[in-house]
């Protein structure tokens, strides 16, 4: 009989590390357009606190992630302690707490995609990009992540590329996708 693996913090909410958020290394401030959008948001909810997720989305839209320096700014806007904002940023999987590559490749490894070969697709991605899950390629182009069902199971096996869903994938399709993304890169 094998011993149980060591408790895996990623899969046990109570064991998760105290929310680690990377630093931007310079002061954070909202842009005038963002300030305007935030004022509009405050008209859409009866509390300022409720604007927390949309404000974090604004930050992630501009920077691609949510840096530690932004937390006090969001807390001030929402009128809640910083700890509440840390709690939210660490609870939701979509807020990136460190920079990601230009293309965030998120492969679905839930059941319907697995039945159609997601594991093989993940192996291909690892091999072709020479990175593992959670890593970014040296050129900063690709970050590889694993996600749960994206409500696109008819496209299984599928992958999310930034905002877009792509599938069904096979190895040839994957090659075509990666070379298209490379050629479109900034």
């Amino acid at each position, binding site marked *: 009989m094998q011993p149980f693996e060591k408790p895996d913090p990623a*899969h046990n909410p109570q064991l998760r590390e105290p929310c680690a958020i990377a630093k931007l290394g310079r002061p954070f401030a909202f842009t005038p357009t963002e300030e305007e959008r935030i004022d509009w948001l405050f008209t859409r909810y009866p509390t300022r*606190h*409720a604007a927390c997720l949309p404000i974090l989305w604004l930050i992630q839209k501009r920077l691609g992630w949510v840096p530690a320096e932004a937390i006090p700014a969001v807390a001030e806007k929402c009128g809640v302690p910083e700890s509440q904002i840390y*709690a939210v940023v660490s609870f*939701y999987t979509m807020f990136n707490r460190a920079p990601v590559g230009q293309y965030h490749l998120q492969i679905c490894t*839930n*059941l*319907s995609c697995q039945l159609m070969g997601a594991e093989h697709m993940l192996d291909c991605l690892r091999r072709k990009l020479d990175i593992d899950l959670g890593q970014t390629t040296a050129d900063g182009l690709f970050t590889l992540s694993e996600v749960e069902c994206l409500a696109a*199971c*008819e496209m299984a096996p599928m992958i999310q590329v930034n905002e877009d869903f792509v599938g069904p994938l096979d190895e040839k399709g994957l090659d075509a996708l990666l070379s298209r993304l490379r050629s479109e890169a900034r």
Partner: protein
Amino acid sequence: MEVKLLTARFGTPESWSIASYEKSGGYQALRKALRMDPDAVTEEVKKSGLRGRGGAGFPTGMKWSFVPKESKLPKYLCVNADESEPGTFKDRYLLELDPHAIVEGIVITCFAVGIHHAYIYIRGEFGLPYRRIQSAVEEAYSKGYLGKAILGTGFDLEVTIHRGAGAYICGEETGLIESLEGKKGQPRIKPPFPAVVGVFGGPTVVNNVETIAAVPWILGHGADAYRKHGTEKSPGTKLFSVSGPVVRPGVYEIPLGLPLRSLVNDLCGGIRGGKRMKANIPGGSSVPVLTAEEALAVNLDYESLAAAGTMLGSGGMIVIDEDTCMVWALMIIEKFYAHESCGQCTPCREGTGWLKQLVARLENGGGSPGDMEKILSITRNMIGTTICVLSDAAAMPAASFVTKFRSEFDSHVGAGRCPIRRATVGV
């Protein structure tokens, strides 16, 4: 065999635009409803027998009537577009292809219940569906279907779209409410139910996208016309999302009561490569699994599925073929629930973690003979003991997989590796 009430517009060009929607009779049901007494609108929905399509199947008209008429705090509607139950993707189709039906359903619902602000809570991963519903809401404002004095009546309604950020638990209605308030999506203890104390303290209706999208059809054509489809106890149609190794996976709108074998074998074209079905999860990964034999004998309505020991759930059907290892499949399911438990309740937080580890150890060939009893005993302690039913949703698949496919689990003990499937996924 398909009956296209809610999906009738799916094939038309630019079906998501207001021009196309109006051309096919869109917003006529709203005009009709606005001339009715609000209570009569609720009555019509009650009469139709429409039940919640998000998973729990609660009668929709009855849910609306639980909201107090007079309330000091504003009342709200939350449209649940979080669609995260593994195997379910029908709301995505509605959001992408017929967003105005959702908007029209929202206005009718809010008129019936006396609500002046609705929130659409949409999962953060949805890109195109978000853009489609966003532009539908904007078009509806500019045409006077939303905003102040809708269509010249005294009825006002604001609609705000709120993006989630990746958390299955925010699909649970009180997790959704917490998330909408700007917090972690940790469910609340019920009672009080959202109809009495919901978002921002006000009485709140939470309804699934498909439920809301059915409302205009019912008001437009009448409850009797809706009841012509489906069975006596499960009237109307239901969107099923079918995935797994079938020839034509996709969204199918069928009258409730259709035999499962018609959906899988005829509409979806059967299993790929002429293989046989081994198992079927009919309502999203949370519901008990059926063996092929059970599945091929069952009809797709609330009562028949309950009699077969499973549930209709969200209608997210996952088909499993003869080549699949059931221990491996359960491992993937349990990894999901362990990841998504919000951690508030001990039976769920610990139970999902234990199930994941026990099943993964079995799958990798390192289990012991007592593991199956251990799994069953853990599941008994996870059902009915927690704040929300995510815990039950993790326990029910485990209990049914182990019970119905016991010999596959037994064959893994002491095998050193999965005897059915060569490769194993890392957990």
